[in-house]
């Protein structure tokens, strides 16, 4: 083409292997292209700039270039037909298609349906029509025959009837028949009408008297409906599907065991404070060179569980500790299995009972649970006799439950406030209270209505408060609390979060009370029995072995405060303190965590049982003092009391009323406390024997036991307690291994091997990771596109400006032209006028 229209991009160097696409440009062509494009798009937009109405072309396929014009036409035609289909145009005569039967339009037949369809008619008509058809169509033969016969007759009678006559006869006959039929029909109609009227008269009478007979008459109508209904029902009915087969008892037991094992494994994991998420995170990091990448990971916990069963343990620190535990754990599991069996048995029994009592069926499950649990406790007892006694007690209780059940209403709303809740329960027996709670739970199960969850969550708080109130009574109703723990546990299982919240709330209250007391008085006293009960309940509801637990950990801190801050001034304080010591031991019984306060407190208790003298070789810490007025609180010097003492279980009600007791009784309680203290010391020793500094921890206690206690004065039984505690302390091997830090992972040395980077394109630096590269690429692309867009916009503006200028020029030119024209015409006018003037003058 024209070399002047070509722009060549000069290249400095020729590079082999590089493809160049922009070495030659055609500016003229590209410009004209761009202008064309703009006139098609931008110009249109510009022209329609301030016009809001739009022309829409809805013709089918008008702008679709893929369809050929013929196809387009065909499609348009079919569309048109489709649109008109179904529309009945009354003026359209051509397309009126009518279906006929027997020469009559079907529509008309349908209209007259009732009249034509009388039963006898059809037959008659059939015969008639047969005759007629015979006459009309196939009738040639028939007629001929008749003709023949008539002919024969005619031969005899001289042809009395011609063909015409014959036909007339036929017609007359048919007409007659028709008339007859009509009269018949009319009479029938009349008769039915009459019948209907009669029936209506009777109907009014019959409706009132015997609806049953009426039903019989009416059955004609509802019958098909019923049938329909049945058919539909059958159609839509849920078909019985095969479900899982019933599990055998063994399988159930196995499942239960597996569940318990899983729960136990969870508990252990939590006890060691391993975060599952962390574990999951860590796992992919440690990929050894030998990893087959088949997703098989040797799970540490599983292995632990296995070894746990075999009786071997292979974990770092807790090895020896748990050795003793295992057997007992296994025993426990077996025990639980037994329990399960018992549960099943009791369920059967209760099922049998249910059949007798109609009102019971709602509560059978819960009841059986209760029974089985109670039976379970019975079985736990090693003592057979007590077992029997207990089961008898259970039976009695069951009887009581039955009685209570029958007396109470069946539905209860969840009380709105604590006062209402309390009024609901007060004045009832234990059994009744339990049933009320049970029924409240049943009637307001969260699956039944929307708001029930919140209501039941509140119920937990109410119950807790109620228990606290029962415990603060002058005569604490501990037996009731003992039973009320069950619904509390159930509620807690249903709503763990809200239960933990209300438990925390109670704890916080107690702790803040103590804090205030310390601030005001400078020292604290032990809280009431209710708080002690709450602490105990916490251990029932939540797992105390967790490394961290939202409820249990604050409880630990609170109890530690109780043991370190509260002054011991009375015997009740001692009992309360020992109760908390028991709690501590129970809390850590599985996790075997170290509680310094516990040892301190036991040491202090032993210290106050000594006669006054300077303690040597050990130091007691707060709240106990080596010297002071509360020493000898547990010292019993009365010989007679010492002799008559029998180890007794401390009744918890001591905590609230102690004053009515005689001196001897008080002394006996003192001695019981001492025995309890010995036992706790023994349990501590058993618990902590695996701690590396066990001897240092127990050192002061041992000194006190061996050197200071007046053992010789103790009665025989006390000496036994003392000796067993001392034995547990003494026979532990001293065993120290020097500490060694865990090896630090060696940090890799910095190396000087060259860094290898993939080169994708020459002349471009490729650094960083894939992500970085991608980012750079995107940035570059964005930059380029941005520039391009700016250029385009600029050109658009230029184009528009040119357009506008052209418009203005055009307008100006038109104006000029018009002005010129006008001036011209004016000039000619003027000229003509002047010429006229001149002419006149001349004239």
């Amino acid at each position, binding site marked *: 083409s024209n070399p002047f229209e070509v722009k060549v991009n000069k290249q400095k160097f020729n590079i082999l292997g590089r493809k160049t696409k922009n070495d030659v440009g055609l500016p003229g062509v590209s410009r004209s292209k761009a202008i064309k494009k703009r006139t098609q798009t931008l110009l249109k937009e510009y022209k329609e700039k301030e016009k809001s109405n739009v022309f829409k072309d809805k013709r089918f396929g008008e702008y679709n270039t893929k369809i050929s014009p013929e196809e387009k036409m065909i499609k348009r035609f079919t569309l048109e037909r489709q649109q008109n289909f179904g529309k009945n145009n009354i003026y359209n005569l051509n397309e009126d298609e009518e279906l006929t039967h027997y020469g009559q339009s079907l529509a008309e037949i349908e209209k007259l349906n009732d009249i034509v369809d009388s039963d006898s008619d059809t037959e008659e008509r059939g015969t008639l029509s047969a005759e007629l058809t015979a006459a009309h169509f196939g009738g040639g033969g028939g007629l001929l025959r008749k003709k023949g016969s008539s002919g024969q007759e005619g031969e005899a009678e001289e042809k009395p009837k011609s063909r015409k006559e014959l036909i007339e006869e036929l017609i007359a006959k048919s007409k007659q028949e028709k008339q007859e039929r009509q009269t018949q029909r009319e009479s029938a109609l009349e008769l039915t009408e009459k019948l209907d009227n009669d029936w209506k008269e009777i109907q009014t009478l019959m409706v009132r008297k015997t609806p049953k007979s009426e039903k019989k008459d009416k059955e004609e109508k509802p019958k098909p409906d019923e049938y329909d209904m049945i058919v539909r029902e059958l159609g839509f009915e849920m078909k019985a599907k095969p479900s899982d087969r019933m599990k055998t008892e063994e399988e159930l037991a196995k499942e239960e065991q597996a569940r318990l094992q899983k729960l136990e494994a969870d*508990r252990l994991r*939590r006890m060691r*404070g391993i975060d599952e998420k962390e574990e999951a995170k860590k796992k992919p990091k440690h990929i050894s060179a030998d990893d087959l990448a088949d997703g098989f990971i040797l799970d540490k916990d599983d292995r632990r569980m296995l070894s746990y069963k075999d009786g071997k343990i292979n974990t770092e620190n807790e090895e020896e500790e748990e050795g003793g535990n295992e057997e*007992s754990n296994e025993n426990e599991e077996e025990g639980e299995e037994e329990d399960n069996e018992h549960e099943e048995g009791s369920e059967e029994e209760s099922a049998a009972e249910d059949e007798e009592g109609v009102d019971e069926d709602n509560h059978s499950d819960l009841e059986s649970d209760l029974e089985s*649990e*109670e039976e*379970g*406790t019975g079985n*736990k007892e090693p003592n057979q006799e007590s077992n029997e006694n207990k089961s008898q007690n259970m039976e009695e209780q069951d009887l009581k439950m039955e009685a209570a059940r029958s007396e109470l209403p069946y539905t209860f709303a969840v009380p709105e406030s604590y006062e209402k809740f309390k009024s609901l329960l007060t004045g009832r027996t234990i059994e009744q209270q339990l049933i009320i709670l049970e029924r409240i739970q049943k009637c307001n199960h969260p699956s039944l209505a929307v708001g029930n969850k919140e209501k039941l969550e509140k119920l937990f708080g109410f119950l807790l408060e109620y228990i606290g109130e029962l415990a603060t009574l002058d005569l604490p109703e*501990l*037996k009731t*609390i003992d039973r009320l723990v*069950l619904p*509390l*546990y159930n509620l*807690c*299982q249903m709503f*763990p*979060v809200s*239960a933990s919240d209300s438990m*925390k709330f109670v704890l916080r209250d107690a702790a803040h009370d103590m804090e205030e007391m310390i601030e005001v008085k400078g020292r604290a006293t032990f809280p009431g029995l209710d708080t002690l009960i709450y602490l*105990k309940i916490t*251990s*029932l509801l*939540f797992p105390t072995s967790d490394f961290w*637990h*939202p*409820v249990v*950990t604050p409880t*630990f*801190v609170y109890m530690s*405060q109780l043991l370190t801050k509260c002054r011991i001034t009375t015997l009740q304080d001692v009992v309360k303190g*020992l*109760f908390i010591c028991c709690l501590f031991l*129970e*809390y*850590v*019984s599985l996790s075997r*965590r170290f509680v*310094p*306060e516990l040892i301190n407190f036991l040491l202090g208790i032993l210290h106050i049982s000594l006669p006054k003298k300077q303690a040597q070789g050990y130091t007691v*810490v*707060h709240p106990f003092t080596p010297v002071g007025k509360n020493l000898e609180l547990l010292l019993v010097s009365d010989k007679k009391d010492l002799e008559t003492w029998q180890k007794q*279980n*401390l*009744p*918890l009600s001591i905590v609230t009323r102690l004053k009515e007791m005689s001196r001897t009784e008080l002394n006996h309680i003192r001695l019981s406390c001492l025995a*309890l203290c010995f*036992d706790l010391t023994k349990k501590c020793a058993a618990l902590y024997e695996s*701690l*590396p*500094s*066990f001897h*240092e921890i127990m050192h002061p206690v041992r000194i006190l036991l061996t050197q200071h206690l007046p053992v010789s004065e103790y009665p025989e039984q006390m000496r036994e307690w003392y000796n067993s505690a001392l034995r547990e302390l003494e026979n532990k091997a001293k*065993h*120290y291994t*020097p*500490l*060694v*830090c865990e090896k630090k992972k060696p940090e890799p040395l910095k190396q000087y091997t060259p860094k290898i980077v993939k080169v994708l394109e020459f002349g471009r630096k490729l650094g960083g990771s894939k992500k970085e590269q991608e980012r750079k690429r995107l940035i570059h692309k964005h930059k380029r596109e941005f520039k391009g867009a700016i250029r385009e916009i600029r050109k658009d503006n230029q184009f528009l400006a040119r357009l506008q200028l052209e418009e203005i020029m055009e307008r100006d030119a038109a104006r000029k032209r018009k002005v010129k024209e006008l001036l011209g015409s004016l000039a000619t006018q003027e000229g003509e006028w002047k010429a006229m003037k001149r002419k006149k003058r001349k004239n």
Partner: protein
Amino acid sequence: QLPTGLYKKVLVILHDSILPYMNEPTLMIDFLTVAYGIGGAISLLALNGLFILIHQHNLEYPDFYKKLYSLLDPSIYHVKYRARFFHLADLFLSSSHLPAYLVAAFIKRLSRLALTAPPEALLMVIPFICNLFRRHPACKVLVHRPNGPEDLSEDPYIMEEKEPSESRALESSLWELQSLQNHYHPDVAQAAAVLNQSLSEIEDNISSLLELSACELFDREIKKKNADVPLEFEPVRGLFGKKNDIFTEHFTLD
């Protein structure tokens, strides 16, 4: 010569209300040394005034560290002036010129006493000990003794020895902190577990931990939010109905 209550009151305010306004603070030397010698809480309180005299007025106190060492007894973790004492102890032991045996003796004694300490004190003293290790790397044998004797029948450290140099602390190991790794409070257990690994170079700031009280500890725990609450799976059979319940042996529900 003074009643105990008054003694304490005087000593509490001595260092910031009396000593700076005296023309001759050295006059207080006798008073303070006597108070320091009494023992117990009074000694702890006298320490502060004494420190000012030593630090600013060039007092030379023979066997100061020995005396400080002998002040360490189980009550230091329980008394009200705990924060004050540990603040000063931190100052005294911050010198890098102290002999290793002395620091080791302090570490060993503090950790031995920690076996009876409440959690709030433990949370303070464990980072304290870690700081001592950082300042005196020679003491690290207490937690890391790779080529030591295999089995010992006795802790070489002598608790009753008054003289730090004779206490054989450097031959011992910190089994106490290892025991505390089993502490019931998760934070304490975690803090104690730090010694299993090699320590980082940067010292912990214990000034915020000094004043930590049990109530604050409780509040901190109870305010923690947790989405899910693990539950006890063993069904309840009554108030004392757990397996092997200790309470059934010693208490009745009467």
